[in-house]
């Protein structure tokens, strides 16, 4: 098979869609106005971000007033959680979340716990990383003020039953937040159907540029902004808006949710082919996360007898961009907290492989990856024994 370069790391980030870039271009060039200015430059920029807000609101089935644009998914999670905690600190100081959240959530609740006197309960997860609604019900106490459960997991792709969790929280009078960063381009985001009070999204996960996110806060949710200043974004997130990025996000979310089911079906078929090929050709490889309740383009594995970093390196050399489940900054290897939480051993938690497909992948590319991945694993294993 001819050598190519295939990008299979869409959970990390995606390419800007050509139509998105086209929509953004005026705001990177001539239309440089500050949307908060009174003059016509400002007015045109203001109209552009309000159009984007309506595009997002249409997908979320909410009022544009409930949408704030932020700098990234992490910022949205921070604003959401800290905002509820601060607003309800007199009512109670108990937070509920899961051990498999993104660090944007985990580090935020940890700081609330260590610095501000809050208490955190981490829900149990099963071997697929799924939370049970019963466990949420059992964890809620009179002083519980917030439940935060991610929509879909970045490392293992598992989708949580957030509509059911949200319904329970509503019944019990507890605010419910979901980190929907990974789900953003693929799963239904109707906040009423999902019973969500706060939601975080990140544009670059669905073909918008980096540096722009969304925070949804349902009207009348007890919440206060921790980004104070000039009162932009209805006072929810002060700071001059990233106009071009916001315009891009608006265009991108609309594109992502047009023909969503058909695109997901195509992604699932390609993903299942890739997973099948790898499991069939290589011993000592396990799929991680839920086999069916998972993001459509998401495949994740634990690969035995291979160093995760060598595997990624080898795949890159042969033309497949992949990632590992474990955080790997400046060469330090730490076991994945997600894999540890679903019962993996330390060694397993350090040998994750994640292949995430996107709409811009072709069947030919997936066939190439299905041939390359087994070959690279087997060659590394051949020399690993001494």
């Amino acid at each position, binding site marked *: 098979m001819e050598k190519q370069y295939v990008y299979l790391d869409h959970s990390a980030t995606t390419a800007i869609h050509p139509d998105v870039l086209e929509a953004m271009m005026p705001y990177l060039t001539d239309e440089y106005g500050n949307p908060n200015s009174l003059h016509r430059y400002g007015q045109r920029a203001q109209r552009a971000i309000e159009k984007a807000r309506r595009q997002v609101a249409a997908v979320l089935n909410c009022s544009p007033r409930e949408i704030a644009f932020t700098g990234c998914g992490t910022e949205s999670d921070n604003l959401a959680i800290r905002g509820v905690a601060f607003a309800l600190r007199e009512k109670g100081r108990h937070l509920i979340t899961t051990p498999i959240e993104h660090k944007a959530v985990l580090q935020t609740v940890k700081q609330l716990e260590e610095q501000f006197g809050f208490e955190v309960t981490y829900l149990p997860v099963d071997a697929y990383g799924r939370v049970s609604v019963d466990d949420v019900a059992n964890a809620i106490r009179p002083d519980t003020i917030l439940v935060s459960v991610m929509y879909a997991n970045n490392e293992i792709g598992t989708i949580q039953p957030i509509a059911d969790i949200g319904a329970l929280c509503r019944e019990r009078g507890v605010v419910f937040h979901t980190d929907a960063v990974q789900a953003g381009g693929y799963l239904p985001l109707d906040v009423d159907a999902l019973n969500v009070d706060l939601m975080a999204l990140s544009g670059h996960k669905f073909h918008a540029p980096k540096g722009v996110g969304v925070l949804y806060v349902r009207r009348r949710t007890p919440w206060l902004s921790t980004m104070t200043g000039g009162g932009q974004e209805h006072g929810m997130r002060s700071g001059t808006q990233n106009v071009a990025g916001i315009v891009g996000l608006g265009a991108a979310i609309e594109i992502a949710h047009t023909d969503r089911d058909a695109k997901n079906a195509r992604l699932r078929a390609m993903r299942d082919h890739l997973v099948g090929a790898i499991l069939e050709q290589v011993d000592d490889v396990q799929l991680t996360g839920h086999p069916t309740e998972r993001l459509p383009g998401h495949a994740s594995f634990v690969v035995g007898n291979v*160093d995760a*970093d*060598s595997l990624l*390196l*080898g795949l*890159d*050399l*042969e033309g497949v961009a992949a990632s590992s489940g474990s955080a790997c900054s*400046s*060469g*330090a*290897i730490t076991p994945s907290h997600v894999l540890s939480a679903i019962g993996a051993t330390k060694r397993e938690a350090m040998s994750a492989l994640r292949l995430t497909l996107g709409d811009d992948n072709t069947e030919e590319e997936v066939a190439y990856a299905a041939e390359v991945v087994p070959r690279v694993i087997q*060659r*590394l*294993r*051949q*020399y*690993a024994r*001494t």
Partner: protein
Amino acid sequence: MTTVPVCDIRDWTQLNVNPAPPNGKRVVVAMSGGVDSSVAALMLHEQGYEVIGVMLRLWAGEQGVVDERTGFVHNRCCTPDAVEDARALCDAIGAPFFLKNLEEPFREAVVEPFIDAYLHGKTPNPCLHCNRTVRFTHLLNIARGLGADYLATGHYARVVKGDDGLYHLYKGVDPQKDQSYVLYSLTQEKLAHLLFPVGHLTKPQVRELARQYGMPLANKPESQEICFIATGDYRQFLRRHAPPGAIKPGPIIHVNGRNLGRHEGLPFYTLGQRRGLGIPWHEPLYVVAKDHARNALIVGPRDALRTETVEIEQVNWILGEPDGPVDIEVRIRYKAPEVPAIVEPLPGDRARVTFPVPQQAVTPGQGLVFYDGDECLGGGLII
């Protein structure tokens, strides 16, 4: 030995690099960010290899150099600056660059034996252990596993395939820089897949090349310290890492049996050491032995340091073990000159080394390396 004019660097035939024209073969270059490995990568790129730069992350100890700007503590090896220099060089030649984490094998195969050796009265050379295990076993296997035909490093040594079909290891052409000593443990299987491009050049030629190619590191100082001991103070490192109570004060005893005082712990002394004993005596006193069983430091006059015969272990013979005693030359430590010796192979990868001229301070734990003129024949660790 003819030297290679630097202007001919693009012509691989001048370099006698083993064993054949590159033809786009893949080579993993172990990068340190320093000038030697950078020039090695550059040369291989110019010669037509597909170069992949890899920097090893070997140690993340708590003891390190504090970066004054960021407060970040890092070690002498793989500092952010070194990583950036290596990455920049790879960028310039269009080569991929990766950091490869080998902290676990490094701790097991290098740092722990280093501490253990000191606690057993030896003076280890950790580079020997690292080269035998981490660099030329783990990294070589990784390179092969990545589909590379070769692993290259910036060592000053040469590998040449002889008419006898064997790979021969020679000193680097620059006598000041020769590093064949730390490579004595290489085997035929390993040498077949190793390239040492700068071994065919002198250090001034390497620096000149770096300058010609506009590399920013042409004037970097040499790094000589043990890479995982950032402060350069191995005593402090041992105090911190040895098990509690493992290092104890004990008696200083003269070879004539007289008790002369107290030492602070055997690992803090080196054979042949004269200063820092703090004992007034009518003639200069040297550390001549460490009696591990009695936790005693044995001192005596210079004559008592003389050794006529010594045994070595973990012996490697690059061209195969000889049938009986051989009359060759040996180095008893890294920068020592070669001296005549008779080396007699013993069972169990050992050998007995006899010096026709007795040697001073033959130190257990150090490498004893065999030579025949410019060729390194192997070596072992002094028991």
